[in-house]
């Protein structure tokens, strides 16, 4: 999309990224084109600083069909879905829902980007646990996450403290009807 001098060439908007963006916006059912960048969402977003991009900027990328950049932004994975953007937007745009759509679509189309890999890992491990047990077992979830993200020593003390207060049971609680749970996963799309 960028010319050699670094300018974004809009008249060559490739149909594929545009379609993806249009579809994501449509499925989110949010009136994204109404955004006039007042920055209300930006000011209230808890992760905007950490992500280096504000919600309305993210929407702008989608609106212009600049998909690659949207997918590569950290906001896609740092968004916690707190909903502050949505309730403060004068145009009633819940950007968190748009972000959910973009994420889901990127998984569906296998166009997953690499920013904040560990948060995606966290979500995947979380769901894997539910698929296996029907409920989340915090101890093994945390351990698996730390191991796989090679973050072996962080929160070790916290984990210890919680363990000794019996807040991290050794064994998982399990749902009896795990077959129903597995079916539920197999019917829905899951990555």
């Amino acid at each position, binding site marked *: 999309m960028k010319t050699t001098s670094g300018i974004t060439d809009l008249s060559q908007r490739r149909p594929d990224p545009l379609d993806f963006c249009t579809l994501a916006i449509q499925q989110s059912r949010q009136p994204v084109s109404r955004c006039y960048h007042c920055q209300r969402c930006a000011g209230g977003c808890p992760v905007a600083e950490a992500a280096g991009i504000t919600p309305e900027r993210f929407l702008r990328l989608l609106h212009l069909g600049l998909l690659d950049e949207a997918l590569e932004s950290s906001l896609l994975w740092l968004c916690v879905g707190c909903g502050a953007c949505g309730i403060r937007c004068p145009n009633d745009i819940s950007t968190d829902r748009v972000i959910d759509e973009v994420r889901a679509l990127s998984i569906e189309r296998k166009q997953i980007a690499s920013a904040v890999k560990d948060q995606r890992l966290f*979500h995947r491990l979380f769901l894997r646990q539910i698929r296996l047990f029907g409920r989340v077992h915090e101890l093994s979830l945390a351990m698996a996450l730390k191991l796989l993200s090679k973050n072996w020593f962080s929160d070790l003390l916290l984990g210890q403290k919680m363990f000794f207060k019996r807040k991290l049971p050794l064994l998982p609680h399990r749902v009896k009807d795990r077959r129903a749970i597995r079916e539920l996963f197999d019917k829905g799309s899951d990555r």
Partner: protein
Amino acid sequence: MGQYGYYPGCSISSSAREYDRSTRAVCATLGIHLTELPDWNCCGASSAHSLSKDIDLALSARNIGIAHRLGLDMVVPCAACYNRTMHAWQTLRDDPEKRAVLQAQLGFDFRADLQVYHLLQVMEQHLAHLKEAAAHRLPEDGVRGRRVACYYGCLITRPRGINPHEDMEYPEGMGRMLAELGYQPLRWSFATECCGAALSLVRGDVVRERVDRIIAAAREAGAEAVVTACPLCQLNLESRQSDRFPVFYFTELLGVALGLPETEKWWRLHLINPVKGLPQRA
């Protein structure tokens, strides 16, 4: 007095044990009957809806199905579980296509007259009874009557429409209830500011920053403690704080007002002993 299907959520038996205990104790004292939903599953929290809308819906719909089969309204202590369950409930109510698919898949008939409540709402419904029960107890206690900052977190009142009972920016239910029981809830600006939620394990630094600001705001408002209604909020506020500011579950404060003897045990379960952190009374 009241019969509810209790949907505890995954944290209740682990990181939020004191929440579960205080809830059950308070309800028992008031004669509110909690039937734990048999074979309930995880709601998916933020992970399900982040990766798949279908799975997110189905997980909560299954729990609703279980409650429906028992013919009970649901009461949910955790804000995230409440948010996901309510979302599924509203979808089942408003989207005939999805309702048909989920009903067939999960084998139940949706009933719009069976409600989903957050624990706060149920307690508010029983406020008169609470007051009456509390009136007979002696007020002398290091915790009773403290100045508190009620922290709702981001999911109890958002998005728009998920909670018809509360104002989105300055909710008041918890404060009103605690005020009736002799506490002094303060007006402050961080009641619904997100703590950073599920980022805690991967980006603990972001959560720490958010938590420190929330605690600082509570301090500035003149609070002696923060009160929560969500296991993840509580966990983050306690584990990621740079200080040792007291954080209570609201049900624990109700328990104190009711003069329940087992409160001592709850304090020991906290990561930061909340009672030790309270300033001396004049």
